[in-house]
C-alpha cells in the first residue's frame, strides 16, 4: 500500500478545485470514486492490512468517498451556475458609502456634561442669549459701577440690555419660576468681547445649580468630584481654591490635575501641573433674597464651566477659533 487515505483525499480535493469545466470534474470523479477508481482500489487492498486495522480503515475510506462525492456535486453546480451567466463580483471594490454626519464637538461635549448631571438628577433649563442688565448682573449681586463687572468684557445692546456674559442669569430666571428643591443644569451660548487663541467673542458654558435645605460646601465638592471623575477619569485629582464671584460666597476655582502630563508640568498647564476648569461656590444669600427664597432655610451651590475649554483639553485642540470656522476637515474628526 503506497498512499494513505488522507493523502488520497487531499490530492482529490486539489484536483476538484483545479478543474474548471464539467469534463475535467467528471474525469476527477472517474479517477477517484469511479468503479475502477483509486478509492475502490484502496478498499480492495484492505486485505493487506493487519486484521485489527481493517474495519477502521474501511470506514474512513467510505467517509472520504462520500466527502469527495459532495465536493464533485458542488463543483459541477458551480460550473453550471457560471455557465448560466452568474458572474462573480470583485468583492474588493469599495462599497457605496453609508454617509454619516457629525455632531459638532461642542454639542457632543455639552451632551456629555449634561448627561452626567442628568444621571445625578439635574434637569436642563435654557434662556435668552440677549439679556437684561438686571438678570445678567444686578440680580447676581454685581452692583452698578462695581469693579466685579470688569471681570467680564461685556457686549452692550443698550444701557440696560447686554449679550449675556455667562449662563448665570438662568439661575435667577429659574429660581423665580420654580420653588426649591431645585437641581438644574444650564447649557448655552455666552458672549464676551475678547478674541485670541483661547478666547472667541461667543462660546458655550454649562452652569449648574442645586438648592435645598442643608446643602454644604462639602456637597459641592462631592458633586464636582463625581463630575470630574465621569468626564475625565477616576485618576483625575481635583483641588479647590478660594476665588471670587459676586453671586457665590464662598467661591472656589476648581483645578484638575493636568490631563496631559498628570501633574508633572507641561505646556498645556503652563508647567503648574493643574488646569483650571470650573468656577463654583455656595449661592450668595443676596440671590435668594432677590428671588424670594427663604435665605435662612435654603442653601445651595452653583458652578460653571466653558465647554470649548473642556473640549480643547479632551481632544488636544490648541486654537478655540477652530470651533466656529466649521471646516469639514475639523468637524469630520468627531
Amino acid at each position, binding site marked *: 500500500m503506497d498512499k494513505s487515505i488522507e493523502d488520497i483525499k487531499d490530492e482529490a480535493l486539489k484536483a476538484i478545485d483545479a478543474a474548471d469545466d464539467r469534463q475535467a470534474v467528471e474525469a476527477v470523479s472517474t479517477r477517484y470514486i469511479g468503479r475502477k477508481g483509486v478509492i475502490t482500489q484502496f478498499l480492495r487492498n484492505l486485505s493487506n492490512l493487519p486484521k485489527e486495522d481493517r474495519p477502521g480503515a474501511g470506514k474512513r475510506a467510505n467517509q472520504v468517498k462520500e466527502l469527495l462525492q459532495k465536493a464533485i456535486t458542488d463543483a459541477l453546480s458551480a460550473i453550471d451556475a457560471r455557465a448560466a451567466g452568474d458572474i462573480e463580483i470583485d468583492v474588493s471594490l469599495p462599497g457605496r*458609502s453609508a*454617509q*454619516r*454626519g*457629525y455632531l459638532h464637538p*461642542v454639542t457632543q461635549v455639552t*451632551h456629555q456634561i449634561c448627561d452626567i448631571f442628568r444621571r*445625578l*438628577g439635574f*434637569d*436642563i433649563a435654557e434662556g*435668552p*442669549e*440677549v*439679556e*437684561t442688565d438686571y438678570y445678567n448682573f444686578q440680580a447676581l449681586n454685581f452692583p452698578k*459701577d*462695581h*469693579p*466685579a463687572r470688569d471681570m467680564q468684557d461685556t*457686549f452692550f*445692546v443698550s444701557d*440696560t440690555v447686554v*449679550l449675556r456674559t455667562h449662563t448665570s442669569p438662568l439661575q435667577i430666571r429659574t429660581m423665580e419660576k*420654580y*420653588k*426649591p*428643591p*431645585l*437641581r*438644574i443644569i444650564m447649557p448655552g451660548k455666552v458672549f464676551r468681547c*475678547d478674541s485670541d487663541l483661547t478666547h472667541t*467673542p*461667543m462660546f458655550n458654558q454649562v452652569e449648574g445649580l442645586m438648592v*435645598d435645605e*442643608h*446643602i*454644604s*460646601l*462639602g*456637597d459641592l*465638592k*462631592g*458633586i464636582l*468630584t463625581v463630575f470630574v471623575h465621569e468626564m475625565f477619569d477616576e485618576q483625575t485629582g481635583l*483641588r479647590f*481654591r*478660594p*476665588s*471670587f464671584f459676586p453671586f457665590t*460666597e*464662598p467661591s472656589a*476655582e476648581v483645578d484638575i490635575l493636568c490631563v496631559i502630563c498628570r501633574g508633572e508640568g507641561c505646556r498645556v498647564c503652563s508647567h503648574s501641573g493643574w488646569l483650571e476648569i470650573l468656577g463654583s461656590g*455656595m449661592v*450668595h*444669600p443676596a440671590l435668594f433674597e432677590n428671588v424670594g427664597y427663604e435665605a435662612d432655610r435654603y442653601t445651595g451651590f452653583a458652578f460653571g464651566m466653558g465647554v470649548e475649554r473642556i473640549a480643547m483639553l479632551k481632544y488636544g485642540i490648541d486654537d478655540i477659533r477652530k*470651533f466656529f470656522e*466649521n471646516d*469639514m*476637515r475639523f468637524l469630520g474628526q468627531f
Partner: protein
Amino acid sequence: MKASLSWLNQYVSIDMNASDLADTLTMVGLEVDSVTDRYEYLNTVLVGRIVEIVPHPNAQRLTVCKVDTGNRLVPVVCGAPNVKVNMLAPLALPGTQFLDGTVLNKNTIRGETSEGMLCSEVELGLGKDRSGILSLKGSLEVGRKLPQALSLSDPVFEIDLTPNRPDCLCILGIAREIAAIQKTSLAYPDIPVMEAEGEIADHTSVTIEAPDHCPRYAARLLTGIAVAPSPFWLQDRLNSVGLRPINNIVDVTNFVMMETGQPLHAFDFDRLAENRIVVRTAAMGETFTTLDGKDRKLTDEMLMICDGEKPVAVGGVMGGLNSEIEKTSRRVLIESAYFSPPHIRKTARTLGLGTDASHRFERGVDPENTVTALDRAAQLMIEVGGGKLISGVIDAHPKKISRNKVTLSAGRTNRFLGTDLSQKTMAKLLESIEFKVDIEDADTLTVVHPSFRVDVHRPVDLMEEIARLSGYNDIPTTFPPISAGTKLPSRDLDVRDNILRIMTGFGFTEAINYSFMSELSCDKLRLPADDFRRRMVEILNPLTEDQTVMRTSLIPGLLETMHRNASQQVRDLKLFETGKVFINNSLEELPDEVEILAGLWTGLRKPVSWHSAPEDCEYYDIKGVVEGLFQALKIDNVKYSRMPNDLCFYMRPGHTAQVHVNRSAVGWVGEINDQVLKNHDLKQTAFIFELDMSRLSPHMPELQQTRSISKYPAIARDITLIMNIGIESGEVLIKIREFDEALVESIQLFSVFEGGPIPAGKKSVSVRITYRSIKETLQDEAINQLHRDITDRLMRAFQASLPV
C-alpha cells in the same frame, strides 16, 4: 499686583521658598500668576575682564577697551575715569534693557565700534555710585551672568487679585496674609510723631462740597522741602515692583501707596490759588489738563480737587499739570483721602483713564488708614527731602464709614461648610487676619471686621474666611441627598436632540456659527427694506465689522461656512445648524429669540466612486431630507407649494417651496438665488431649507399609538391622469389623502411626463395606490369599484382626463 520677596520680608519673616510661597498664596485665594526674578534684566550683563585700554583716536576723554568675556574679546568705548587693565567690571551686551527703559544697542562712537557697555552701580540699578564703572571684587569667573556671579536674586510675585480683595493691593496686605498662614507676627512700620512748627489751620483749609463723592479728605503741609532724586533704598523698593522712580516727593507717595494701599497725592502748595483745597464736582463740559498732558472733558458727576479758583486734580484718578511737583517746589501739601468707589469707577471709565490710584479707590481703600498713611508719607518726605512738617493735620470727615458687628453661629458655619471646627478654632482663624472676635455663648461669635476688609458684611463672608484659612482641600467631600426635586419641562430639548440625531443620520454635519452677523448680511440676502429680518439687534461695541448685529437668519453663517470650505477645496457639503435668530421687538426690552433649523447641501449627491458617474445634488435631494425629517418627527399633513416669486429674495424663483404643516407656514426649501451666490463669492449652487423649530413641536404627537398591522394581502392599482401643466403634481397625492379612504394603505407618485403623445399644455401624472384591509382579503371587484371611484373624483377635482 506685584510684590517682591525682599519688600515682603521687611514686614514678615518668610520661612518658605518662592515656589512654596506662590502655591500657598494661591491656595488662600491670592492667585499667583507668575514668579519672576527682578534681576532678570541683568542676565545680559556679564563679568568682564578689561585686557587692553587704548585712547580713543578721535575723542580726548574716551578710551577703547578690549573686554574678555571668557570666549571672546569685546571692543567697548568707555568714558569712565577708573578703567584699569585686569579690572573685573560688569559688561552689558547689546539688547540689555536698563531700569529707566533704555535699551543698549551696538553702535559706533566717533568712528570706533562699541559692542557693549561697562556699567556703573547706578546704571545697573544696584547702588548709588555713579563716579565710575563698578569694580567687581573677589575671584569672579569671567563671562558669568552678573546675577549669578553676585548672587542677586529677588523673586517678584505677580498676583491676580479678585476685585473683592483691595486690602491686598499693597505689600502690607499680602504680608498680613503670609503672617496669618505662617502663624507669625506682622511688623507694621514705625511712624514717629515729628511735628515741628506752626499750625496747619493757619496756612490752609479743606472744604468738602461733595461729601457723597468724598467722605473723607485729610491733608498735611510740609515746608522747606528740596525736590531731588530719591535715595537708593527708595528707588530700589520701587524698582523691585516695577515702578519707575521720578523724584523724592512723588516716589514717597508711590512708596506709601504700595506699602499701605492708600493712594496719595502731593501738590505744590505754592501753586494752589488761595492756598486752599475745595472738593467739589466738575461743571458740565469743563476741561482740565491731567498730569499726562492730555485735555480731559469733564462731566458734572466727576469729582475735582480744586484750589481757591480752579481744579487741580481729578479726585482719586490723576493730578493736574497745574499743581505738579517741580524741581523748585518748596512747600508740599499731601492729600490722603477716601473717595466713594462707584464714583471713582464711573469717572475713570468715562475718562478712559485707569491709574494705580483709581484701581484702588474703586475697589475700596481702608477708610480708617487715611491719616496713618498721611503720617507715613510726611515722615518719609522729611527723611528724604529735608524740610519741616507744619503741626497738625486736617481731617475733613463729613461721612463716617461704620463697621458692623456680625453675629456668627459656629454650628451653622460647620453645617454650611461641611466642617467640624471648634468655635475656638474659628475665632483664632479670624483673629489671625485682624478680625475682632467676641465669644457670646457656646455657639455664637460676634465679629467686627478690620477696616481694610471692605468686602466683609455678612455671616457667609466670615464663613468664607474660615474656609479659606482652614483650607478648602481639608473640607470633607460629601454627597448631598437627592430629594424629589422640581421637574422642569424638557419637550423642546427632546425635539432638538431628536433633530440632531435625525440630521446626522441623514449624513448632515452640524455647524455652529457665531450668533453675530454683519449688518450688510441683509443686503447680501437681498431682503427688502420692510423685511422682518432687517429688525436687527445692534451691538454698541462690536469687535469686528462682520459682527455688528445679532443674526436674523442662519443662512449668512451657512453660506460663509460654505465659502470657507470651498477655499480649502472642500466643495461637497451637507451641513445643518440649529440656533437662535434675534428679531428686534419694539414693544419689549428684549428681542424675540426664535430657534431655527437650517440645512445646506451643495456639490455632489454622493461621493465620487467607481459605481456611478458623479451627479450634483438637486432640489429633490434636499426636499427628500425635509420629508424624511417630518416623517421621523411623526409630523403629518405637510404641504409643499411653490414659493411666490415676490417672496424669493434669496431663493431661486420656481425652485423653492414653502412648507406648511396643517396649513401653517413653518419654513421653506429650495435653491439659493444666483445673485445671492455671487454676493457671497460662491462659485457653485447650494440648496437649503429653513424651519422654525418652535412651530414644529405643536404638530408632533405627544404620545404615539401603534397602528395594527393587517395580515391580509395588498392589491396595487395605477392611475394616470392627463391634466394641466399649471397644477402642482403634489396636489394629486394631497387630494387622495383628503379622500381619507380606509382601504388606501399607501400612495406613490411614480411618473410625471410632458410632450410626446401628451397634448401641449398638459402633462401626465401617474400614481400607484396600494389597497389593503385590516379585516379581510380584498376582492378584485370591490377594489376595482373603489379605484374607479377615486379616479372619477380625481378627474373632477383636476379637470383631468384619462390617457387615450
